[in-house]
């Protein structure tokens, strides 16, 4: 053993003498770099069909203060490969700060007085489009008000409003194409409204009557319409995000000129499905637009109790996703941002993240009284001074495209239409009892058939114990 050691020691010392210590160190060869593909390059070779590549140079991404600050001590010569690709070394031990020195700024076009800020980037909106957008925002307001009251009167069991978020709802919908598949959370009925869902159809779902496409199976506001490419709302938070990645991938495979668009609140970004959804969309290079409505509250949980990051926009980069923060109460900014994001998603086949800053003026739902956990002054401020509908109205009016007469006509006719829709929906027949058992599977199974027979017999025997109106 000792002889072996002595021999190896001699070997090393002779090496050192002959070749110098440098021979033992591994040196980076500048002249012929070993070809190493980054994961990104590998995957782009794999996932894109070269013959029908959608890639092209996107518009320049606005430079943002880097979270990673360049070090003066970075030593270029010391750069080595790791599985993720080449990374430079530094001898300076420096931690990336937990947040940037300044917050990511918020993109907006209209100031609070409804005037376009000079030199803003934005996609122009025609009179026709602008008027339609405004009408729909006002309609959404009236709809929310009337349905909320209907719940208070006990005519429907539940409701939740989108008050304060009308710009996000309508402007984002206006920026999309009808083929884009929408996977909502639950505070985006304006998207469905824009696409042509009628007030009657909304009312039918809230009443769960025979005309409800959902067949009365879910609580109010759980709208869905395959005709309008709007996936049915489900109560669990953020579950739609990884599904949106799958939908986007399906569209990618079909080479459709369409993308998946999915919405989430600030609270929902804490769910594991947010991480799953963004990561999958990025890795799969799926055309998905993730729109986060950061409205400051998740029921009673303020965003200061939800995360410690600078909102949601900074999380995009963590997944390799291009992101933007936009003023969610500025309809023109939302329109431009969503329109651009959609184009990027489809032409570059990549996900994009939009954080739309806004405020939830209403209570979380009819089961909530938000004055219990926030100041009434705060609510009032946002309702009056930061109202997205008023802000856009000013701009539309300033252009001469809208008058007070139009306003009162619209509001009164919409109100009337809604009241009629509610009255009609209330009177509609209920669903036949057999719909309790359908659609669990594509075809009713034996155990369900047996249970249906048993239930029908029971209801016929003791009708007084059951609500009326359900055709057996």
């Amino acid at each position, binding site marked *: 053993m000792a002889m072996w050691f002595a021999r190896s020691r001699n070997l090393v010392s002779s090496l050192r003498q002959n070749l110098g210590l440098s021979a033992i160190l591994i040196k980076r060869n500048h002249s012929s770099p070993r070809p190493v593909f980054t994961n990104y390059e590998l995957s782009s070779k*794999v*996932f894109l069909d070269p013959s029908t590549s959608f890639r092209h140079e996107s518009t320049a991404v606005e430079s943002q203060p880097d979270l990673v600050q360049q070090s003066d001590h970075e030593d270029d010569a010391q750069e080595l490969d790791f599985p993720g690709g080449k990374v430079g070394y530094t001898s300076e031990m420096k931690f990336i700060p937990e947040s940037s020195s300044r917050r990511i700024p918020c993109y907006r076009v209209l100031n609070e007085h409804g005037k376009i800020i000079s030199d803003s980037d934005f996609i122009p909106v025609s009179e026709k489009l602008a008027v339609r957008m405004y009408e729909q925002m006002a309609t959404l307001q009236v709809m929310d008000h009337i349905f909320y009251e209907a719940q208070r009167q006990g005519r429907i069991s539940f409701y939740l409003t989108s008050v304060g978020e009308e710009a996000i709802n309508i402007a984002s919908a206006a920026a999309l194409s009808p083929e884009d*598949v929408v*996977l909502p959370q639950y505070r985006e009925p304006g998207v469905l409204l824009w696409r042509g869902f009628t007030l009657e159809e909304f009312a039918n779902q809230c009443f769960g009557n025979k005309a*409800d*496409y*959902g*067949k009365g*199976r*879910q609580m109010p506001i*759980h709208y*869905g*319409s*395959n005709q309008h490419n709007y*996936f*049915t709302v*489900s109560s*669990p938070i953020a*579950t739609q*995000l*990884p*599904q*949106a*990645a*799958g*939908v*986007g*991938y*399906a*569209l990618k*495979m*079909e080479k459709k000129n369409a993308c*998946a668009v999915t919405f989430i609140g600030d609270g929902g970004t804490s769910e*594991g*499905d947010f*991480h*799953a*959804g963004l*990561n*999958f969309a990025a*890795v*799969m290079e799926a055309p998905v637009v993730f729109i986060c409505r950061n409205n400051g509250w998740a029921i009673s949980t303020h965003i200061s109790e939800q995360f410690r990051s600078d909102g949601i926009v900074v999380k995009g980069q963590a997944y390799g996703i291009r992101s933007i923060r936009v003023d969610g109460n500025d309809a023109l900014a939302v329109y431009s941002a969503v329109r651009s994001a959609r184009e990027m998603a489809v032409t570059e086949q990549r996900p994009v993240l939009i954080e739309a800053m806004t405020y939830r003026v209403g209570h979380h739902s009819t089961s909530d009284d938000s004055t219990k956990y926030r100041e009434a002054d705060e609510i009032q401020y946002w309702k009056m001074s930061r109202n997205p509908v008023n802000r856009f109205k000013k701009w539309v009016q300033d252009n001469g495209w809208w008058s007070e007469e139009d306003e009162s006509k619209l509001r009164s006719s919409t109100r009337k239409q809604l009241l009629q829709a509610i009255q009609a929906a209330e009177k509609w027949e209920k669903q036949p009892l057999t719909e309790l058992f*359908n*659609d*669990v*599977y*594509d075809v009713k*199974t*034996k*155990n369900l058939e047996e249970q249906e027979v048993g239930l029908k017999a029971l209801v016929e025997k003791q009708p007084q114990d059951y609500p009326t109106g359900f055709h057996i």
Partner: protein
Amino acid sequence: MASLLGRFCRKLVVPGSAHGSRMISTTACDSEAVKSLNLYSAINQALHIALETDPRSYVFGEDVGFGGVFRCTTGLAERFGKNRVFNTPLCEQGIVGFGIGLAAMGNRAVVEIQFADYIYPAFDQIVNEAAKFRYRSGNQFNCGGLTIRAPYGAVGHGGHYHSQSPEAFFCHVPGIKVVIPRSPREAKGLLLSSIRDPNPVVFFEPKWLYRQAVEEVPEHDYMIPLSQAEVIREGNDITLVGWGAQLTVMEQACLDAEKEGISCELIDLKTLLPWDKETVEASVKKTGRLLISHEAPVTGGFGAEISATILERCFLKLEAPVSRVCGLDTPFPLVFEPFYMPTKNKASSSSSLSSPLKKKHYLIMGLHVWCRYWMQSSPLLITSHSICFFR
């Protein structure tokens, strides 16, 4: 073990037996080509066929690209391309959620969860989303094209997190189907049925059998119907019900019981949700006894559902309480695995199979007690079927 398995796994030629005959499979004709395959190869074949026959089908999950940790996805990526067969990030909720999205757009998504022990992060997506997708939308949307495959069950050295049998959790979820094959030939047919079934299916594969089970598997495209149990061994004295790898154990128990003159009828349930009650009911009405066996812990296991249902339907025909020979109510242990498992000895010594009193004996006992009660003029009608009182 191999020879026993060889006897258990059905071949096209059925050996004559004095104590009950085997059911011949109707899935392959003599003229069709067959190949001797193990379970992972049979599953691999099914996946090749599924992707071949539907260009809108996809296979993905952790590590499926190179063939998968159990080699079930070998050759798929090379043959069908990385757009259709690909690795995913390590995130089960993402895998299933992504699969739901793909399926909702009309595609077939055959997703792999690496071990059934890791399926729980996807439980929300499976229960709250996949299972309810069609129902909650009023049939406007569905994710029937989703099939979730996961290896389950004891493997000899798996411990807590490579041996679980979580089927019971999923059997409690209306809207999905739960399918568990017992052998290579069954697996191929059942997997193709599951993939093509217009409902989301959770398909548990007994990992113990991936290499161990070898069977003649027809090479063509065939499907075995879901929700149809199969009597794989006929008998008259007792019905045994099981699924997956446990059937090999139960087959052994049947052979042992045969030596004692007990004729056992063995049923492979195949689909646990929705399950074929009629086949089990007909069998128990014939035999009067039921023994259910599964690896999963006995409390709250799927055996309880079968037991309750059979009691409801066959109470008057039962000669003994329903037996459940199952795993213990512990996390799946490592060094204690041989003690935990529901072995053939446990089955043989269970109350249903061991010392089965003859029917005649019970009848005499019943009559005796009836007479005594009658004489005490408290008319308590006890028939020869109320044997449980006398055990």
